[in-house]
C-alpha cells in the first residue's frame, strides 16, 4: 500500500476533508455560480446547522451508543421555542426552559440505556416518539408562534457579523468546535469518554461510572439537538414539528463520513465537521445538477456507501483476535 493511502487509512478525517474539497472543485466546474459568495455562505450555514446537530451524535457514538432521538428533540425545541416566544417570553427564558428540558430528556435516554443495558437505538427511538407525541398534544397539532428575532438574524444567510460577511452562526460554530475539541482532548470528561467507549469492560476498573458517563453524554447530545432545533426555527421563521426528520440519518452519515467508528472509542469532532461539509457539498452538487429530490436521495445513499467503503471499513475479524 502506498504511503499516501496508508496516511488516509490511519487518519480518516483527512479523507473527509479531501472529499469535501474535491466535491467543491467538481461543483465549481459543473455548475454556474457554485462558488459565488452567496452560494458559499448558504452552504456554510447549512453545513453549520448539520454540524451542530451532529455534535451530540459524535459524542454518543464515541461512547459506543447511538442517538435516534435527535430529530424528535430538534422538533420539540423548534415548536416549544416558537410557542413560548409567541406567548411573549424573553429569549433567555425560552432558551433556558428548552435547554433544561432537553438535558432532562437526554439524561433519561442515557440512564435507561446504561442501567438496564438496553440498546440505545430502541430507547432513544421510544423516548423520542413520546416527546414528539407530547409536543403534538400540547400544540394540538397546530404549532404557532414565531422565531426570536435575535436567532433569525444570527442564522440568516444574508447576515453579517460586523465587517465579516458571514452570519454570526459561523464564528460561533468555530468557537464551539474549538471548545468541543479541547474538552474531548484535554479534560477528564473527554478522557473518560474515550475510555468508556473503547473498552466498556475495563472502564469501571478505572473508576469511571458508566451510568454517569452515559447520562451526561446523552444529555449533551439532546442539548445540541435542541440548539439545532432553535437555530432551524430562526432559519425557517416558523415552527414545524418534523423539521428534524432529514437529520435522523444525516447526523449518523456526517459522523461516519468524518471517520468516527460506530464501535466507539475513536473519532473526533473535526472529522464530523468535515463530514457535515462533505454531505452539504454532495447535496448541493446533486440538486444543482438538476436531479429530482427522489434521485438526490438515492444518489446520497450511494455516495455514503461509496465514501464509507473507501476509508470507513471495519477491520477483518481475524485481526481483532
Amino acid at each position, binding site marked *: 500500500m502506498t504511503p499516501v493511502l496508508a496516511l488516509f487509512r490511519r487518519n480518516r478525517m483527512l479523507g473527509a476533508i479531501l472529499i469535501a474539497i474535491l466535491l467543491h472543485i467538481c461543483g465549481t466546474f459543473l455548475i454556474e455560480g457554485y462558488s459565488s459568495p452567496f452560494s458559499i455562505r448558504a452552504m456554510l450555514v447549512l453545513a453549520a446547522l448539520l454540524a451542530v446537530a451532529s455534535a451530540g451524535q459524535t459524542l454518543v457514538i464515541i461512547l459506543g451508543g447511538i442517538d435516534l432521538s435527535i430529530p424528535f428533540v430538534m422538533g420539540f425545541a423548534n415548536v416549544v421555542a416558537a410557542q413560548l416566544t409567541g406567548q411573549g417570553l424573553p429569549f433567555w427564558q425560552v432558551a433556558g426552559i428548552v435547554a433544561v428540558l432537553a438535558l432532562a430528556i437526554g439524561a433519561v435516554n442515557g440512564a435507561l440505556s446504561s442501567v438496564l443495558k438496553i440498546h440505545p437505538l430502541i430507547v432513544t427511538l421510544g*423516548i423520542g*416518539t413520546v416527546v414528539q407525541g407530547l409536543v403534538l398534544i400540547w400544540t394540538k397539532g397546530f404549532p404557532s408562534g414565531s422565531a426570536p428575532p435575535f436567532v433569525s438574524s444570527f442564522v440568516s444567510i444574508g447576515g453579517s457579523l460586523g465587517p465579516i460577511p458571514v452570519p454570526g452562526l459561523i464564528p460561533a460554530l468555530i468557537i464551539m468546535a474549538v471548545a468541543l475539541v479541547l474538552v474531548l482532548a484535554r479534560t477528564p470528561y473527554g478522557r473518560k469518554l474515550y475510555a468508556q467507549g473503547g473498552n466498556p469492560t475495563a472502564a469501571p476498573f478505572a473508576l469511571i461510572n458508566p451510568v454517569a458517563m452515559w447520562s451526561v453524554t446523552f444529555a449533551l447530545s439532546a442539548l445540541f439537538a435542541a440548539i439545532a432545533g432553535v437555530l432551524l426555527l430562526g432559519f425557517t421563521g416558523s415552527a414545524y414539528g418534523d423539521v428534524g426528520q432529514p437529520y435522523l440519518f444525516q447526523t449518523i452519515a456526517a459522523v461516519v463520513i468524518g471517520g468516527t467508528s*460506530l464501535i466507539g472509542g475513536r473519532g473526533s469532532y473535526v472529522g464530523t465537521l468535515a463530514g457535515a461539509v462533505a454531505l452539504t457539498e454532495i447535496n448541493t452538487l446533486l440538486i444543482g445538477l438538476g436531479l429530482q429530490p427522489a434521485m438526490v436521495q438515492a444518489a446520497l*445513499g450511494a455516495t455514503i456507501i461509496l465514501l464509507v467503503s473507501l476509508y470507513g471499513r471495519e477491520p477483518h*475479524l481475524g485481526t481483532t483476535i
Partner: protein
Amino acid sequence: MMVIWRVLSRSGFGAALLVVLLLLNIVLNPARFAPQSWGTLIGLAAPLVAAALASTPAILGGRGGIDVSIGPLMGFINAIIIAVLIGNLGLSDPFVVIPAAILMGGTIGLCNGILAAIVRIQPIVATLGTYLVLSGLTTTIVPAPTGSIPDWLRTFSQYLAFLPPLAICIAWWGVRRLPYYDQLMATGSDDRAAFTAGVNVPLIRLLSYVLTGAFGGIASLSLSALIGSADPNVGPNYTLLAISATALGGVSLAGGRGGLTGAAIGAIDIFLLQSALTFFNVSTFVLQVAYGAVLVIAVSSTALHERLFLRTLR
C-alpha cells in the same frame, strides 16, 4: 401454579403483553375479532408481522447486524411488481410474480450482505445507504400511488392473509434444521469464538442478509395485497415498526438470542396496541405517545426479566 409461573418467566414480557392486549381487544371490540372477520384482521396485521419476521435473521447475526432498509425494500418490490411487472409488462401470473418478488428481495439482501459482511461497512450505515437508494428509486419509478392488484393477490389480504407470514415461518423452520442455524447463533453470540472454531463468519452473515431480503420479498406481497396498489410512501414506515417489534419480542440487538417467534409476538403486540387505542378514538398524537411508552416499558421489562430470571439458568 408453579408451572404457570415458570412458563411466564421463561417466555417474557412480550408474550404476557400479548395475552393482556388480546383480551382487552376482544372485550372492547368483539365484532372486529369475530371469526368471520379474522381474514381481514390478519390481512391488516400481516405486513407488519411479515416485516418483523423478515428483519430477524440479520439481527441474529450479531456485531451490530441490522437491516434498516427492510421498509423501503418492501416498498420497492411493491412498486416493481405492480407498476412494472403487472402494469407495464402484463405478467400477472402468480407463478411469475411470487418468485420475482422473492428473487428481487434476495438480490437486494445479497447487496446488503456484501456491503455489511464482505466490504465490512457498519451494517446500520450500509443498510441506511440502501434505504436511501431504494426509497429514492421507488419514488422515481412510481411518483404517486398507481395501479391495481390481480384477484389472487387480493386474497392475501382476505382469507389467505395468513399465507405469506406462514410461508416465512415454514422456510425458517427448514433453515433451523440446517447446521447454518447453529452457526448463525454462534456468530451472533460470540463471533470471535465462532471464527476461531472455524465458522466462516462473513459467509454466515452474508447469508443472513440474503434471508432477510428474501423474507422481505414475501412481506412485500402482504403489503401489496393490503394497499392494493403501488404506493411509494408506505414502505419506509415499516422499518422502525419492524425493528421495534423484534426488540419488543425479545430478540437481542446484539445478536445470538431470540427467534422468529419473538419477532411475531412483538409485531402482534404493536398491532393489538394500535387496534385498542384506535377503538378509544384517541388522537394519533396520544397513539404516538402510547406507542413510544410501550416500546420503552416493554424493552425495559425484557431487560429486567433477563437480569432477574435468566441468571438462574447459568
